[in-house]
């Protein structure tokens, strides 16, 4: 049995906008084991992105507890959260968020600049390995603005992989892509999961979510459903069919 990587206990999140309190998440209890591929699915405004931000240490919960690898992260300082973000998690965003006019190599290298403990020994090797994993070795010297949308997202995946994190969070990773590029991204994510990487995907699309092994549905800030995907879509087979 795989170890529990993520566990939340009565997690909640409120936003205070000039005295107006908006409750975004209420009493969220969930558990994700290492090596899972989980899709957090829900309509926009459901709180799924907020949940991902808390799980990815970008935000703190307002109440409840969040255990990562058995450790309570609720009371960590800003700097401690930054270190965890650098070491334990990788992010893939809908809008890629690459540095403009910067090479693929330098974009992928970015998280390693903040690897103060030198956890990754050979930076050059790690960067090349990550770029190779997304099939962009031939584009390594190109600038980010010379790439297609799909390629940009692959660079973002390489950047998420380069620090060899325990979990990858992907926030609507196919949202800005055409279907062909989207399938390729899902194929890479499924491949990474096959190799043991924990993937947490946030999406509002049922179709995209069905590429995961498990779907957690979030509606109005609460988990409404949590189930294993019985007929999982395999992006590689879909791509082969198109070919």
């Amino acid at each position: 049995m795989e170890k529990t990587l993520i566990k939340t206990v009565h997690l909640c999140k409120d936003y205070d906008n000039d005295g107006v309190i908006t409750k975004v998440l209420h009493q969220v209890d969930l558990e994700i084991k290492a090596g899972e591929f989980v899709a957090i699915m829900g309509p926009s405004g459901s709180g799924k992105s907020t949940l991902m931000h808390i799980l990815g240490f970008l935000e703190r919960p307002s109440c409840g507890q969040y255990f990562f690898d058995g450790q309570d992260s609720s009371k960590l300082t800003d700097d401690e959260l930054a270190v965890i973000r650098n070491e334990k998690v990788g992010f893939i965003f809908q809008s890629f968020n690459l540095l403009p006019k910067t090479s693929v190599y330098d974009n992928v290298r970015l998280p390693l600049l903040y690897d103060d403990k030198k956890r990754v020994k050979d930076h050059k090797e790690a960067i090349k390995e990550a770029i190779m994993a997304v099939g962009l070795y031939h584009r390594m010297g190109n600038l980010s603005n010379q790439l297609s949308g799909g390629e940009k997202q692959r660079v973002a995946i390489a950047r998420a992989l380069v620090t060899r994190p325990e979990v990858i969070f992907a926030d609507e990773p196919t949202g800005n892509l055409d279907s062909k590029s989207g399938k390729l991204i899902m194929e890479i994510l499924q491949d990474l999961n096959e190799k043991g990487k924990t993937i947490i995907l946030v999406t509002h699309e049922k179709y995209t979510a069905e590429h995961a092994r498990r779907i957690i549905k979030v509606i109005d800030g609460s988990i409404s459903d949590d189930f294993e995907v019985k007929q999982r879509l395999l992006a590689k087979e879909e791509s082969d069919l198109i070919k």
Partner: protein
Amino acid sequence: MDWKSTIKIAYIGLKTKKSRTFMTMLGIIIGISSVIIIISVGSGAQSLILNQVKSMGSNLIGILPGGSEGDSGPPPSALGIVSTNLKIADLEALVQNNNVPNAVAVTYENRGVGTLQWRANKYDGTFIGTTANYPEVYDFAVEKGRFFSKDEEKDLARVVVLGSEVAEALFGSNDPINQNIKIKKEEFRVIGTIGKRGTVVFQNQDNLVFIPVSTCQKIMLGIDYVSLARVKIDAEENTDRAVADIKQTLRERHNLGTNEPDDFTVRAQTQAIEIFSSITNSLTYFLAAIAAISLLVGGIGIMNIMLIAVVERTREVGLRKALGAKNSNILNQFLAESVVVTLSGGVVGVIFGVLFSFLVSVVARRLGYEWDFIISYAAIFLSCAISILIGLVFGVYPARKAAKLNPIEALRYE
């Protein structure tokens, strides 16, 4: 994150906005180059003046009529007050009876202005009535002809020695020797001309003419007092003793009681050098301080641009934080950008300043001044240090603003 990477990121950040970076730098470039130029040109001018003063001889002691306050207070003549108590006999006494054993020679003078005329040529010049040993005391030679003699000085001779500019203006290519000219309608015979001497302490030496002091006092001005005297002493190190002897002699001759102040002013050339040094230093630092105000303006410009950069790059800050950048990493990155701008501006400013100062020295030398090209290494080092300081001081507010950004809000920023 190491400093090498921080500076590299700062460089890349600045490179993407080349023209803006240059415009931002411009304030610092202008400020630093102004400070360098003012200090360099100020030092050059100071050296020029001091060299001129020294060239007159550091073993000279000046005597002026009228007392002054303390050792450095202005003499009455500087305030436009005419004192008539310094007579030729007082000054001759200095080199008589071993009153001032270190005195080698004494010269004294009166000055007047008037129109000089030879045939139809006229020139408005300054005539100096002085002693026959004037060239010896001031250490210059007559180029053509001769200076007047002691006898001519005593005999009220109407002879004149012309400065080079006067000779040129009145006579052109003609030989002035033994020609008669008129000074204020009085006729004088030209017996010599002096070669080009240039400007010494703001006084053009080439538009002067020299006549015997007795002739000047009795015929030209109708006075019996001296307005300035200089004693040449045997060696500079005997200045203090000579000054004391001069004062003692003059006090005795003027019958001054013990409690009465001097009714004359004695100043050594070394004192003049000190006074000129202190005046030129004060002027240089005052002007450099004014130029430094432009650095303050440049610094505010940098803060402004860095604030804009923080807003523009909010998403980038959010991304870096999401990928593991600590607040201190972001702070250092923006501070590094600010310092890279100001230090680069400072270095370019120093280069411009040095080049311009060199140009000034070349032009000044072409114009005939003995101008030294002086660059203070301390000023260069200080300029670079100030540039870094400006970058840090004016960069810290925008950098703190960037560092405090919430990663999620920053990533969502449109």
